[in-house]
């Protein structure tokens, strides 16, 4: 088998990797960062803009995959948490603007706080009851913006003045690639830097005790409780972590879209996040990334196909959701573990022969 041959070099490479969690994760982030710079510098401004969009979906999705994949709590309401982050950002980047990193931090904090509330309620609920409550959250929270239209701008929302690239940054990249810094590209850098930071922190958590006990709580509540784990607290903590990510995602969204408006946080957004996470492969950061890419790149690709196949604009537009729906179904039917599950299965099919899984008797 082909994969068997490559395990040796892989093992050899593994030996050179740093042994500490932090070291390994940092190295991965560094590699990813280089990839991001390369991709952003080599692609068109339009792709940059799409990548910026993907970054906020992905930030929310990695947070959600921790909540749902690791801790087993389903949330159909992450869009609402993104709204909290987006509005916080919009308010802070309004009239007397604070520096945007401060706004982002504040967005994460405020949303985390909201996450404490939601998480505390959610920690008592299970399965469809949790789904129902979070679904209501998704449709309910945007209503707040309409009710407090004086502060939050009602249906129209709040405009956001997105940050411009500081000169040193633009210069540095020009020096590297001789490309100009468009605003789309800068926002993409911002989004991806945030995403990588979030992924670093989440990867740290997943490799730590928290990753383990969250999964334990997911798998068997009773046994977890007997081992001294406080179910409620751990659930709330998972919710808070995931909410903070959603808040950051909302913040990036607000800056990329330049607007925080209720119709940007419909139930469709919440459901899309969940589908992204599951299609990519529940519980895996890479899977969340893949799922977000699908969310951003699939619909326009399909619409374009439709248009070039001679469909009218309206039909082509409907084709995208149609294909998206079909893809969702097919992925789950064909690869119930999502794309990551599929990859892992392929990988394992190649490697098990070489490792000694003889069983212990």
């Amino acid at each position, binding site marked *: 088998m082909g994969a068997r041959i490559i395990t040796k070099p892989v093992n050899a490479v593994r030996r050179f990797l740093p042994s500490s969690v932090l070291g390994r994760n940092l190295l991965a982030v560094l590699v990813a960062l280089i990839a991001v710079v390369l991709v952003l510098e080599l692609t068109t401004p339009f792709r940059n*803009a799409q990548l910026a969009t993907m970054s906020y979906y992905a930030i929310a999705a990695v947070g959600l995959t921790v909540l749902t994949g690791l801790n087993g709590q389903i949330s159909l309401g992450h869009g609402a948490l993104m709204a909290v982050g987006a509005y916080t950002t919009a308010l802070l980047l309004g009239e007397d603007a604070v520096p945007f990193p401060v706004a982002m931090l504040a967005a994460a904090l405020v949303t985390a706080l909201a996450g404490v509330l939601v998480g505390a309620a959610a920690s008592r609920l299970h399965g469809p009851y949790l789904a129902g409550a979070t679904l209501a959250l998704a449709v309910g929270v945007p209503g707040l913006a309409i009710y407090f239209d004086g502060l939050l701008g009602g249906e129209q929302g709040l405009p956001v003045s997105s940050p411009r690239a500081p000169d040193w940054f633009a*210069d540095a990249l020009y020096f590297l690639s*001789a490309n100009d810094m468009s605003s789309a590209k800068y926002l993409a850098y911002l989004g991806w830097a945030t995403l990588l930071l979030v992924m670093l922190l989440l990867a740290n958590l997943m490799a730590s005790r928290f990753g383990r006990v969250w999964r334990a709580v997911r798998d068997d509540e009773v046994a977890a409780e007997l081992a001294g784990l406080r179910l409620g607290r751990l659930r709330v903590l998972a919710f808070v972590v995931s909410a903070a990510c959603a808040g950051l995602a909302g913040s990036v969204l607000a800056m990329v879209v330049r607007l925080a408006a209720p119709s940007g946080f419909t139930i469709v957004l919440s459901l899309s996040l969940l589908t992204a996470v599951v299609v990519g492969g529940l519980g895996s950061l890479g899977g969340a990334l893949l799922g977000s890419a699908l969310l*951003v790149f699939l619909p326009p690709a399909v619409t374009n196909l439709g248009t070039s196949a001679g469909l009218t604009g*309206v039909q082509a537009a409907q084709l995208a959701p149609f294909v998206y729906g079909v893809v969702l179904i097919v992925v789950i039917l064909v690869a119930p573990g999502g794309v990551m599950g599929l990859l892992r299965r392929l990988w394992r099919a190649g490697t098990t022969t070489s490792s000694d899984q003889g069983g212990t008797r």
Partner: protein
Amino acid sequence: GGRPGEGDGEGGGASDVGVTADTIKIGAHFPLTGVAAPGYSEIPTGTKAYFDYVNANGGVHGRKIEYVYKDDAYNPTNTSQVVNELVLQEEIFAMVGGLGTPTHSAVLDFLNSSGVPDLFVSSGSLLWNQPEKNPQTFGWQPDYEVEGKIIGQYLRDHLSEAKIGLFLQDDDFGDDGEKGVRAFVGDRIVAAERYAPGNTDVGPQIAALQASGADVVVGFNVPSYTALSQLTSMRLNYGPQWIYSNVGSDPALVGSLLNRFSEGKVTDASVLDGVITTEYLPGVEEKDNPWTRLWQRVWDEHGGQGELTNYRIYGMSEAYTFVQALQAAGPEPTRAGLVEALEKIGPELTGPALVPYRYSADSHAGLSGVKVVRIKGAGTEDLSPVLVTGNGDTEITEHTAEHAPPPPNGIPDMKPVG
């Protein structure tokens, strides 16, 4: 490290993005899917039909107009994405007719900072008229305040005893309209009920209007809510004089929606009979109007499936205005030139609309007025002359100029300016 100055010459000659020797590409965003799609998704089909018609007749300055419209599902997040796509990937020359207040707000900054002309937003919000801040953006339809004012004056002069109720969409649309109405009859408003778009149960709102004793209800709402409010008041046997803003009253659409409830005892087509509304474009029902005849011809030749509707006429009318602007921009159009030309020709611009445009160097507001009409059978009868006004305290005046018919070939003939 030293590098060439940024900003690709916004005023310079480099801005003929999207223009080739024989084509010019423009774009728009519309809700083609989702809750807002019904009705509004027809607008770009009208626009496209008219552009095809123009193209078939030689285009503008020899260039064919390529019109790309994309779906945003009425979600501002998507709008920002598809507009990115239009501007950065499709490299459109200008945005024409992008629809919706919250949606278009999301791309206002982007379009303006990228120097993309943003013409004729399909919405009557006041936001599009900020030439200082958003020099590229122009409104098109009469804004809701102007319409509200004219309705308010009508109420003051002709229904002077009535207690007035308002039925408002809970956003700028309702707010701007309310502002206009209140300016004239604020003291007689006994109830202002708002509905949240998406919540189709308007029973409580109508019940409250009924309880307030309003004998006239002014609705600033979209067409589906006109139908819903009519159905609900029928249920309650509540029969005030209804006045709907132009956006919500499309008699053809609403009438066809309502008259199908045959077994629901709404048999005759006259459900909307007697309802008051406003007009600024000749509609499908005015079969003899030369403009309508033109639109019918265009639709028959270049339309896709379906009938000509008022939404399609709306789209064609915007397209017509755009052709005028493009002609005025001259044989070598630039983005800056287009904006400049529109500002210049604004005052003398005529077309399918009954009223003049307000475009100038310091106004990007669209049409300046409406006439008040009563729906009668399939058509309408005028209740007021064509009235024009502006925002704020501007007087309402009569617009007496004759509405010119379209040119025989159906294509405007604006002379290049400057």
